[in-house]
């Protein structure tokens, strides 16, 4: 067949709708690089594109763009938004866990601190019992008969030291602490340790170690860093 006889067949050929002799003829013309047929095929492709581009416009869903780009490896699959949401959730969960952990850590620290206080308190009580159980321990009380004074007892054991058990201690302002003093006869007060009262105004304080059995023990209020010598009047004292 001549190129002219094939003139009306290129559109159908390029759409894949031509068969039989006409298709074979066009294939043959194109195979031998027939310029006329190549030009007509190109024109047919142009007409096809113009017709195909006139389909009624429909806006594709936005997820389709993600799918297409994901299919060529340029974007996470269509569930990218879900991954992003999951990542955001993970961050929130991590923050929550972090806060939870911080809270737990804080509670744990509080418990540990309370336990340490309990252990220390128990240690002091055991020491106190030891003091009280020793036959050579002597006791002097203070504050008896006062309207609202601190009350309590000093216990002195020449081998073990001095034990103070007090109650009704006034709450101290911030930065202040109670300081115990041991005052030898005719001597200057010697610092015997700092302590704070408990919530009920109670305190147990121990000066461990060998101590002169003939001393006066006193308590003053001092800066919480302690003083080398009393800077305030004696709050209570007892002589042995």
């Amino acid at each position, binding site marked *: 067949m001549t190129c002219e006889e094939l003139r009306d067949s290129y559109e159908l050929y*390029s759409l894949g709708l031509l068969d039989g002799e006409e298709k074979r003829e066009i294939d043959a013309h194109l195979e031998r690089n027939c310029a006329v047929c190549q030009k007509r095929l190109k024109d047919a492709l142009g007409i096809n*594109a113009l017709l195909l581009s006139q389909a009624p416009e*429909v806006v594709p869903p936005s997820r389709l763009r993600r799918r297409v780009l994901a299919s060529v490896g340029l974007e996470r699959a269509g569930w990218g938004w879900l991954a992003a949401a999951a990542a955001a959730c993970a961050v929130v969960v991590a923050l929550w866990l972090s806060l939870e952990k911080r809270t737990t850590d804080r509670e744990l620290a509080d418990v540990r601190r309370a336990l340490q206080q309990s252990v220390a308190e128990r240690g002091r009580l055991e020491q106190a019992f030891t003091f009280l159980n020793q036959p050579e321990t002597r006791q002097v009380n203070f504050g008896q008969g006062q309207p609202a004074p601190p009350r309590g007892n000093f216990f002195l054991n020449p081998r073990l030291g001095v034990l103070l058990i007090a109650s009704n201690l006034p709450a101290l302002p911030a930065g202040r602490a109670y300081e115990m003093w041991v005052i030898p006869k005719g001597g200057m007060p010697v610092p015997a340790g700092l302590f704070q009262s408990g919530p009920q105004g109670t305190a147990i304080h121990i000066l461990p170690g060998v101590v002169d059995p003939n001393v006066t023990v006193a308590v003053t209020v001092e800066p919480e860093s302690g003083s080398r010598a009393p800077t305030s009047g004696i709050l209570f004292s007892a002589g042995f």
Partner: protein
Amino acid sequence: MLARLIPVSLALALLQAALRFKDDGDLARRLQARDGGAMPELYDRYGRLVYSLILRIVRNSAAAEDLVQETFLRVWNRMPAFDQKRGALGPWVLTVARNRAIDYIRSVDGKMSAGALELDRLEHPGPFCDFEDRALSLDRARRLKDAFEKLTPNQKMVVEMAYYEGLSQTEMAERMQQPLGTVKTWVRSALKVLREQLSEAAAL
């Protein structure tokens, strides 16, 4: 039927946006170089057109989405064979889209395969080169639309069955219960009218 389906202003606006040959060369070069921004640009340029065409053919949005993905993947994979200096991306992408959709509806109808290999062969980017800048101009699109509207109802119907349904002339004859010769006459005369209108435009 086709005339009823074409909202002219929208279609022409799409054409204007989509068929920009001068820019396609650079886009094709970047696609071949696997430039990360090229594929999003290709989709942004032709995605709506491709989706509209495929949906028009398959009339099923889920299938259309699958086929759009397949179309762009196919274009991406076949880019190395594309002539970046002379090739026309728009016509090629549309042809791939149309053929994927036609292949789909034929397979759904249980006709798969006679034409599958042929459609695959016709998607080769080779023939889509050396298009003149004006080949798919807005003016030609307008002229084609005008020419189409002048066709007889039977001519319009056979053109639509060829482009949007992928029916051969024998299948059209069966569908329309008309002699094959008659259908062939309608098809050829319709395409001749369209071709001549565009030729006249080119000669002006």
